[in-house]
């Protein structure tokens, strides 16, 4: 067991190193020059070439990519993510501040989506009706296919503009005001949850249908255990356990979905930080944010595997 966990952690570190290399290279290979962007229109003047060069030197961009990478990774190992090309501010606190709404958005969406998906999926499987099955399948497809951006806009128009019941933009930290935090998170969480429910409900439905038709369910019923207890204890357990892995695997796309939702509701999370960083060719910011996101995804999937192996003896 410990060996398996150690291997998993080793693979995770290797993966993260690989991501740092890919991110670093991709940014450098992408057209666009941070120095030109910083200098603005003056960069177009042929006489400004020296100024552009000086700025590139100041930013360390005139060194070879290998040296730039070595410098960055050296700092990283000392816990220093560097400073922004644009503002000169330290990356780590910026990334942590931006991560707060993103992490809360994902966590709360899971808290909402998982139980709803289980109830819907299991309930539909238990109904054993072709119509219910089809309805669940189609609705989950619709939920997955509908862009979060569009759903978010609809929510704003209805709940914020028409009803005036909820705020349409911004984020309040739970430490500042828990009520304000909840108020600001309801619509973003609802938006992301719809997408998540679309994925999970279909999965739970499939697993539950299989479990309901399995030998152990039939045996339980034959032993006189009630249908309700069979469903909500035995079937539920077998249907839900694999979901741990699914959630872990979905973490990447969940962050992708969160990026769009953040944009609509002005949460100012990791997605906006990365997007702004890419547009400004702010290499250190993008590298820091991508590294943080990768670490989060790797951690989530590793944790999912570990939890799964702990709670499900078959995996071991």
């Amino acid at each position, binding site marked *: 067991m410990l060996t398996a966990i150690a291997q998993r952690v080793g693979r995770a570190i290797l993966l993260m190193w690989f991501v740092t290399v890919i991110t670093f290279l991709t940014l450098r290979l992408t057209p666009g020059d941070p120095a030109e962007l910083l200098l603005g229109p003056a960069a*177009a003047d042929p006489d400004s070439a020296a100024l552009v060069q000086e700025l590139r030197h100041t930013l360390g961009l005139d060194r070879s990519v290998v040296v730039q990478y070595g410098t960055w990774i050296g700092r990283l190992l000392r816990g220093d993510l560097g400073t922004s090309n644009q503002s000169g501010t330290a990356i780590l606190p910026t990334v942590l501040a931006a991560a707060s709404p993103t992490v809360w958005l994902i966590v709360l969406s899971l808290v909402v989506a998982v139980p709803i998906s289980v109830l819907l999926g299991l309930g539909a499987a238990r109904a054993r009706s072709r119509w219910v099955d089809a309805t669940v399948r189609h609705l989950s497809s619709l939920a997955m296919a509908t862009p979060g951006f569009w759903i978010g*806009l609809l929510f704003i128009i209805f709940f914020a*503009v028409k009803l005036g019941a909820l705020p*349409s*933009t911004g984020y309040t930290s739970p430490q500042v005001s828990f009520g304000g935090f909840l108020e600001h998170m309801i619509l973003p969480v609802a938006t992301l949850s719809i997408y998540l429910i679309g994925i999970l409900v279909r999965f739970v439905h499939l697993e539950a249908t299989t479990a309901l038709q399995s030998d152990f369910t039939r045996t339980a019923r034959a032993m006189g255990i009630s249908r309700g207890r069979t469903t909500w204890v035995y079937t539920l357990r077998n249907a839900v356990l694999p979901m741990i892995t699914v959630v872990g695997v979905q973490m990447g796309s969940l962050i992708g979905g969160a990026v769009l939702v953040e944009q609509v509701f*002005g949460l*100012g999370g990791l997605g906006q930080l990365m997007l702004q960083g890419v547009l400004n060719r702010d290499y250190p910011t993008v590298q820091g944010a991508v590294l943080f996101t990768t670490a989060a995804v790797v951690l989530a999937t590793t944790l999912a595997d570990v939890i799964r192996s702990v709670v499900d003896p078959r995996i071991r």
Partner: protein
Amino acid sequence: MRHLRTRHVTLTVAAVALIGALAACSSGINSTPTTGASSAAGTATSGSAGTTPASSAAGGATTDETLTMAIPSDISNFDPATNQLIQYIYAIRNNVFSTLVKYDTNLGVEPDLATPSVNDDSTEYTFALRPGAIFQDGTPVDAAAVIASLKSVAAGKSIYSTYLSGVSKMTAKDATTVVVTLSEPNAAFLDGLVNIAIVAPDSAKTVGKTPVGSGPYAFDHATANREIVLKRFDGYYGNKPAYATIDMKVITDPQVAVNNLYSGAVDAVSEAPTSVVKQLDTGKGAVVAPQESNSIAMFEFNSSGKLADPRIRQALAYALNKSAIQKIAYGGDGTITGSVIPSGPFAAKVDGYPYDLDKAKELLAAAGASDLTLNLTLPSGHPEATQAAQIWQSALGSIGVKLSVDAQETSVWVDNYVKRTYDVTFNFFNESGDPNSFFNTIMLPHLKDDYKNPTMLSEIAEALTITDQQKRIAAYATLAEQVNEDLPILVIQTRPLTAITSSRVTGLQLNPLGWLLIDNATPAG
């Protein structure tokens, strides 16, 4: 010595294009070679001694209200010596900082922290500082602080340092008088100063993160990609603004911003594209626009290689259906023109080229251009540019010119723009009251590179030294005609500039550069 009048001393902020992010300021004191003419200082010369430094504000009662404003992108660098973002200028620089002189709403230059006066040969400017002005950290705005600030900008690496490149000496005559000596006359000097904020000396090293100036609002806090909050500065020397707090929310999508305006989450949207403005629910929001726009949309040619022959460029101009572009891309707004100086005190009336495909074909034949294939680049995120390019592409296709349209992410576009790896590119430019901004920022790089025209180069330099306003206007009118004739740049029209405000706010204004002015904003009712 005579005092400078408050009206239009040229200014030169220019938002070069595209750079959606780099709506930059341009112009420059001495980046243009000058001819060494003996007199100078151009338009800023006449009269009105002792003009009272203008106070910037509403003059009404202060309130405890918050003005919440949607801005289209985050501002991460608060250093006024380096940040050229247009939203930085109107959101932070104009509110947190003061400048020695500033624009009035029509881009005339008026005193702010100081009343300027100039000697007879226009090489020595004396700035009488406003008594009692203090920075938000409580330190006085004195001559030493002003000089330290100017020297810091002059020594920096940014476009703003070019405004001071002709300065040979800065001295403190006394605690409230600064004397700036120029190596040669420059009619656009005060215009340049409009862009140079005076920073509290003690904050010089941290200004990028925590700006401290002497403007009507003090920086309170910022959360990356979320919001920037300013608080009214009670020690401000001018009239106190009505709003106690300015809360700027970063909302990148304009339609989302407008929905937030409808819901009451924001009171104003600082920049709104035509597509959003045309769908505005006028019961819930009102359009704010300047009386006239000093922003031009244009196509810039790479006047070397395929397009070296001016007849080919003229043919392309005849194939540009500006009326269709105005109707489709700009919703019927803006003014069609051929002038690079479409409005303001230097306005030059140039009609440009009518839409005439026969004439275009004739010119192409005369130039011997057949099977012409051109590449047009444009920055993504500007649907009007794409629409204009497509309209042009269609017309050119009918006369045998193949135009490929390449929408590029802004950073990529900037890189190609700087390296001039295009045949034609879309650009826009927010031009100050002084046309030097356009010629210095947009024309000079072409003149030094792909469009060789020594005559125009020397005329641009000379225009900067002319002291007589009428003669200067005439000089720039001639230059505008030359640009239209030779076509290194093809002007399409002026760009509509718009912000949106809710009925909860009155008094918001937009100047011809697209800067949202909140000085006079007050809560409605």
